[in-house]
């Protein structure tokens, strides 16, 4: 079965200009999104991990420096007009900033009506109106409270849900949601994430959830990819990866989330500033300089990805006794 969207060993290097080396934003990463079985895949990492770069590559907003993004098996660069239009329809985006995506001079209706017109999804104005009202209700908004208003008259949470409604209107097959809840209040976060889950469970839309927030990734997604400075470090079923992280970086990430319990050992577990005496190299594991378990071998070459369980792969030499996967390609570890 050919996946709807496939990232095949994609990498991105931002050039430094005038022969400077530039920054590697994403080292070869592979991911196939099959839509026969809709699911939510989280891509988690801190700033500089390459997660947003990966989202932009998948959306066709940036070109990979290596590897390719394929839509129905065809490289995005080689899509004809027709296929590009179909791609634009099948893959929708929800961005982080619910303030920046609106044109303040247009009523909210505009962002909902335009895509319907663009893709000729409604036969009449009346039908367009009905589709819009239905989409708004699906994400938990009252159409009467939203339509006819200007963006500044809505709250951040309402604006973000309108964006989810907009993505839903097009009945896409995949939504790439880049930090959709990082700018809304905790109380609204659950509602928006609930709307996203509903899109997958009830409307069969797959979601790629890009975030720095491990806890919401755990609550929302089925599987997870953890990136650290352009490299994939751990991937698999979210339940396994979050409750029993195996890569030292994933372990650090999980321990750094402050929890509402009264044990209060969070500050005491702060990371030591120099966990080992090794001098970092450009060639090796990117996490080596912060890793309490780092060995000289970690500096020689990037670690392979080892499949330590049917639904989990870890890029760390500690697990070299397990079968190795192609670098950056968790493959069926995610689909399982």
């Amino acid at each position, binding site marked *: 079965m050919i996946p709807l969207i496939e990232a095949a060993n994609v990498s991105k290097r931002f050039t430094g200009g005038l022969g400077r080396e530039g920054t590697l934003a994403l080292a070869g990463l592979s991911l196939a999104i099959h839509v026969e079985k809709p699911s939510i895949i989280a891509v988690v990492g801190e700033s500089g991990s390459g997660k947003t770069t990966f989202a932009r590559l998948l959306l066709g907003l940036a070109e990979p420096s290596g590897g390719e993004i394929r839509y129905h098996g065809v490289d995005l660069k080689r899509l004809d007009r027709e296929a590009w239009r179909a791609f634009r329809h099948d893959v929708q985006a929800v961005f982080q900033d619910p303030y920046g995506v609106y044109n303040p001079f247009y009523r909210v209706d505009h962002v909902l009506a335009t895509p319907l017109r663009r893709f000729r999804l409604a036969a009449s104005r009346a039908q367009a109106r009905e589709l819009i009202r239905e989409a708004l209700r699906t994400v938990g908004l009252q159409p009467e409270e939203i339509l006819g208003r200007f963006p500044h008259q809505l709250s951040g949470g309402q604006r973000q849900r309108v964006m989810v409604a907009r993505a839903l209107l097009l009945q896409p097959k995949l939504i790439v949601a880049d930090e959709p809840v990082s700018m809304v209040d905790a109380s609204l976060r659950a509602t928006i994430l609930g709307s996203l889950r509903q899109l997958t469970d009830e409307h069969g839309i797959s979601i790629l959830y890009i975030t720095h927030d491990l806890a919401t990734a755990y609550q929302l997604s089925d599987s997870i990819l953890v990136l650290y400075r352009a490299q994939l470090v751990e991937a698999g079923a979210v339940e396994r990866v979050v409750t029993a992280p195996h890569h030292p970086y994933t372990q650090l990430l999980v321990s750094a989330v402050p929890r*509402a319990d009264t044990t209060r050992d969070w500050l005491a577990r702060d990371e030591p500033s120099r966990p080992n005496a090794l001098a970092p190299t450009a060639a090796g594991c990117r996490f080596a300089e912060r890793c309490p378990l780092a060995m000289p071998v970690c500096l020689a070459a990037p670690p392979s990805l080892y499949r330590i369980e049917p639904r989990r792969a870890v890029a760390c030499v500690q697990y070299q006794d397990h079968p190795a996967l192609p670098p950056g390609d968790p493959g069926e570890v995610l689909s399982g």
Partner: protein
Amino acid sequence: MSEPILRVEGLRVTFDHPQGLVQAVDDVSFALAPGERFGLAGESGSGKSTLALAILRMIKPPGRIAGGEVWLAGRRMADLDGEGIRTLRLAGIALVPQGSMNSLNPVLRIGRQITDAFADHGQHLGRSEQERRVRALLAEVGLPENVARMYPHELSGGMKQRACIAVAISLRPSVIIADEPTSALDVVVQRQVMATLARVQQDLAAAVILIGHDIGLMAQFVDRLAVMYAGRLVEVAPIAEIIAQPRHPYTRALIAALPSLERRGTLAGIPGLAPLLRDLPPGCAFHPRCPQAMDRCHIEKPMVRDVAGGQVACHLA
């Protein structure tokens, strides 16, 4: 409790709005013990940052302090003139502002931004003494010496936030107000910054007011938590008690809205939206969103009452 270092009594802040007067902070009272870590939690628009600015007397028109008193180390802030207040800021009470990225001056080196504080407060030091103090402050917040010669854009988010802490503690205040100091940072960096704040706070024996909406962060950092809703404090209690047994339904909802890392499918939102301050519902401002609201909550505004270990403003508690 020993003599409080900061005492806030009946503080009110109003904003003039075309559609009438807006009460952003409504009759807020609390006291901080020296060295105490006090949390102030609530959704955006609940008035928590306005309360911080009111304590610092930094409210600007159309806002104004409409009532109440603030005492810092036994001195009534209202008795001080503009110059007196200015001297008190940094030296007595300091702010680590929200979004440190934007509060540093982009065209001045970090060292200069610290020494400006000395000069501003009439401490005209020699160059070597200035440099020595800057080095000591940077070391205190865990930054290398050469940061003094750098511009803000050369620093990472976590380093900028630490630089802001260095500025805030430069005159050894007895109260530090930290307004969402880590909201823009990654979790690992967040913990480093909070550990830094905890350390300098202990070194100075300063009290801290931590403003934020992350109950997890509050649970791990503060001694006592105040929950703010629509400009009022609705619950104040020691952190262990409030986490184990929240009394106000809003506090319960805030805690439930924190995504858990232990059990999936437990994430709950708070139904409805925070009310507009210029259009508050009658009775308890939380009643339209409260799962336990009774008839009385629609009519009568609950007063803050003392309960074992703290205060709560709810007819049910």
